[in-house]
């Protein structure tokens, strides 16, 4: 098979260098600006969430977030569809050497990581974090568990098809929840909950609920993706 030709390398390097050069020359970057004034001025009062990023992510621009969750769900769906029917039967799923060190460290690490995930989900509107990062962190914790105990031990706790349905069920709930204001003759995706005192757990209106739902969904989705990869591989 022929190697990448020299002329190709030269052409590529030239084109990419020109690309970077043009971009840098014309970007017009003059140091950090001061954007986002409307959010900074009104965000916390209007949404009740101290974390302005969460306020935008789950209130002002909730529609983007819904679409993004759909992207994630499509990815999970695709991974499962393509990897589930490959060979790799039940019996050879994920055996791993039972190392005492790994086991113990996983036992030690799993609870705090899982708790961290839950904290990120629940306090996402007050401090950094949110449904997505929290869900992923918790999912990674479960992954650690899978490394220690063997993926099949963990997987046996969950019925796979049920898990997939649960994932899409949560998505259904999120979408219905987003559409529910219509029932009260309001615009969809409108926040119907009281704002609460800034800084308290119940302050962000429906942001907390969205965070919890998204966290659950991402937690399941992460596990499904990783488990598909593990099983396809045969062992960790």
């Amino acid at each position: 098979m022929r190697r990448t030709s020299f002329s190709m390398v030269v052409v590529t390097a030239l084109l990419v260098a020109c690309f970077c050069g043009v971009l840098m020359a014309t970007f017009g970057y003059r140091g950090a600006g001061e954007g986002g004034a409307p959010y900074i001025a009104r965000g916390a009062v209007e949404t009740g969430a101290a974390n302005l990023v969460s306020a935008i992510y789950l209130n002002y621009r909730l529609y983007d977030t819904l679409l993004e969750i759909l992207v994630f769900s499509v990815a999970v769906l695709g991974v499962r569809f393509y990897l589930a029917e490959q060979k790799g039967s039940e019996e050879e799923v994920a055996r791993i050497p039972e190392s005492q060190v790994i086991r113990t460290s996983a036992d030690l690490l799993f609870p705090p990581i899982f708790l961290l995930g839950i904290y990120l989900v629940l306090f996402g509107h007050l401090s950094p974090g949110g449904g997505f990062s929290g869900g992923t962190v918790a999912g990674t914790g479960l992954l650690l568990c899978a490394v220690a105990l063997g993926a099949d031990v963990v997987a046996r706790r969950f019925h796979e098809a049920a898990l997939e349905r649960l994932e899409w069920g949560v998505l259904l709930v999120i979408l219905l929840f987003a559409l529910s204001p219509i029932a009260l003759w309001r615009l969809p995706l409108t926040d119907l909950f009281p704002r609460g005192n800034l800084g308290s757990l119940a302050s962000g209106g429906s942001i907390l609920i969205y965070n919890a739902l998204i966290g659950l969904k991402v937690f399941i989705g992460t596990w499904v993706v990783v488990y598909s990869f593990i099983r396809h591989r045969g062992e960790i």
Partner: protein
Amino acid sequence: MNFINGVTIAIVLFGIGLLGLILRRDLVIKLLSLGLVNGSVILCLVSLNARPDGVPPIVRGPGGAPYVDPLPQALVLSAIVINFAILALALVFVMLLVERYHTTDSQRIEHEIEEEEGP
């Protein structure tokens, strides 16, 4: 020192990613390069309005602290997740191709497929 800021570094990273994407023939490394390209855009967005004297956009009380712009940060959260989704799917397809053709060399795979398909 002024020259080294998030935006310029992001553009350089974009270029490195492009080079990797074109010149490395290993599909896994191509995916890594694509991740670098998309990651560099995220870095660019985050550092656009990140003032050196700013504070994270988490309101601690009344009064106007110099909060940095929260909007790009919120956008970037979506972008990171989307990149992850693309990566997972692409990786699955790479795995399927490697199982079929026993190689991760993109040109070789392309060659084999052209042979199978005919001209």
